[in-house]
């Protein structure tokens, strides 16, 4: 009898679990699992979307071979730009974030106000912020160039419309936009470091800089690890800033992998190469995350 009721309860539980999970599973399967599998298939074909399903042609790994061979100039530029983008934004963003978080932690009056203000760029929409940046960096009359000219710079850069300056400016924008996030997360991490460690360092006669180098940096390393992994992933996915600020231009100068994927799929309708590029992107993100996970043993301190 008891066994029976337990079985019945188990059955009811399974049924209830099914009901609770159903909406999630529908979303998960329809909009994630199936698309991932389909995308893998499409990446092995040559397919112009406008030609309908009939025009789909099996090409095996050709798309991947073409992308990685460097014959596709757009992809190569996008690929290198993405690497440069990550290699600059992540370390600079982390360093500035940690320094400012440390200063906000016990170093200033009105720390809460500071933390509130620096976070504003992060929640502000990228599109609105970029429109503002574009006007602020407007080449002929914008305030930045007006200041530069007043300071005696004769030919100030043309910023977003210059092949040379557009990309560095977008990188600066990204650092500006995400800095508040780094500061907030670092700040939360710093709050968890035991004050005793600083006390001990002070007793040993350590200077503020030494305390930063020998207490803060190692103790905060789990946070640094988290932020660097997230930072690398999100800088590989950067799209909005490029699309709105420059549309990849001038020419292909500021294109990145996510922008390349968008352009291939929804402007050139080459779904095969777009999907293959998306998988290349995933594989790189995956590899870097694994290297990070493996490498963390060497530099991350857990207590």
């Amino acid at each position, binding site marked *: 009898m008891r066994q029976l009721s337990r079985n019945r309860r188990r059955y009811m539980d399974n049924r209830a679990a099914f009901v609770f999970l159903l909406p999630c599973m529908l979303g998960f399967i329809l909009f994630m699992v199936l698309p991932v599998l389909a995308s893998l298939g*499409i990446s092995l074909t040559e397919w112009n979307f406008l030609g309908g399903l009939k025009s789909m042609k099996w090409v095996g790994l050709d798309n991947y071979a073409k992308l990685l061979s460097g014959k596709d100039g757009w992809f190569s530029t996008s690929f290198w730009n993405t690497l440069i983008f990550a290699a600059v934004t992540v370390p600079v963003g982390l360093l500035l974030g940690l320094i400012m978080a440390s200063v906000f932690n016990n170093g200033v009056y009105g720390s809460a106000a500071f933390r509130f203000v620096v976070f504003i760029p992060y929640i*502000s*929409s990228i*599109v609105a912020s970029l429109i503002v940046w574009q006007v602020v960096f407007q080449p002929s009359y914008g305030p930045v160039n007006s200041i530069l000219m007043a300071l005696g710079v004769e030919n100030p850069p043309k910023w977003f419309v210059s092949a040379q300056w557009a990309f560095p400016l977008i990188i600066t924008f990204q650092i500006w936009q995400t800095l508040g996030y780094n500061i907030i997360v670092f700040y939360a991490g710093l709050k968890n470091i035991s004050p005793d460690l600083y006390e001990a360092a002070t007793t040993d006669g350590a200077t503020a800089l030494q305390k930063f180098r020998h207490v803060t940096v190692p103790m905060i390393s789990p946070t640094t690890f988290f932020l660097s992994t997230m930072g690398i992933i999100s800088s*590989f996915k950067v799209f909005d800033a490029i699309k709105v600020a420059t549309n990849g231009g001038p020419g292909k100068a500021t294109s990145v992998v996510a922008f390349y994927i968008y352009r291939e799929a*929804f402007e050139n309708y080459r779904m095969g190469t777009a999907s293959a590029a998306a998988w290349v992107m995933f594989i790189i993100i995956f590899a870097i995350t694994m290297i990070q996970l493996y490498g963390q043993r060497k530099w991350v301190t857990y207590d």
Partner: protein
Amino acid sequence: MIKAATQTPTAHKRISTRKLILTIVMALVVLTMMFPLLWMISTSFKVEAEVFNFPIEWIPKTPTVNNYTSVWTGNYHFGEYYLNSVHVTVAVVIGQLLICSMGAYAFAKMDFRFKSQLFALFLAMMMIPDQVMLVPRFMLLNSIKLYNTHIGIILMSAFSVYGVFLLRQSMVGIPDSIIEAARIDGANHYRIFFQIVLPISRPMLATLAIMRFVWTWNDYQTPLIFLRDQKLFTLQLGMSQFADQAGTKYALLMAASVLSILPLLLIFCFGQKNVVEGMAAGAVKG
């Protein structure tokens, strides 16, 4: 706390001057950082002819709110974009709260076969970037005639692994004894979920709602790909359109930017604690 208590009065005073200098330096750094946004606010109250006056006039010479009124009228469709964004964002937030909390409850407090394997699969999916799924999602919406509709976007965004993960983490912390007691009293899972678990999880639900509001409001890529008709455009997509149309009406453009950021600022003012919590809980944007 401990540190402050053990400091001697003299040491405290010396640190104070240093703290004061650092505060001033930091204020300058943060002001520089805020330069674009301050300029945006100031310019939004200027008349067009004075926008690029130099040296910069932080307080407008001829202050006006005309930009804020004419954004809504004129042929810019700004009001339509705004309403579309409110519509899509609110629907996505409600959908996520319901769908993700149900899934989270199942993963946190129910027993079923393949639970841990399924949860691991959910988490693994978090690693795959959206870009991989764009083309098939586009095909899918196209084939079920939901391309170029708000419903399509809402359905697609009403579930997120992040939401399930965030809520599950908080529901796991609810003591089993509470749930067992309710079950002995004859409550079924539905009652336990609505009357016990949801009320207890209110703080995390608020966090998810706020995060999702900010992300959906700011989402540019999804509407760019899945909407074609201008009258369906959400604010972010509309803003870039608007920037092309308004061309050199910079003051107007700045007023539009302020208006598009305003709801986020308000939410952040009231929900700062939730936002920070949501971020620190392992937030991957999207």
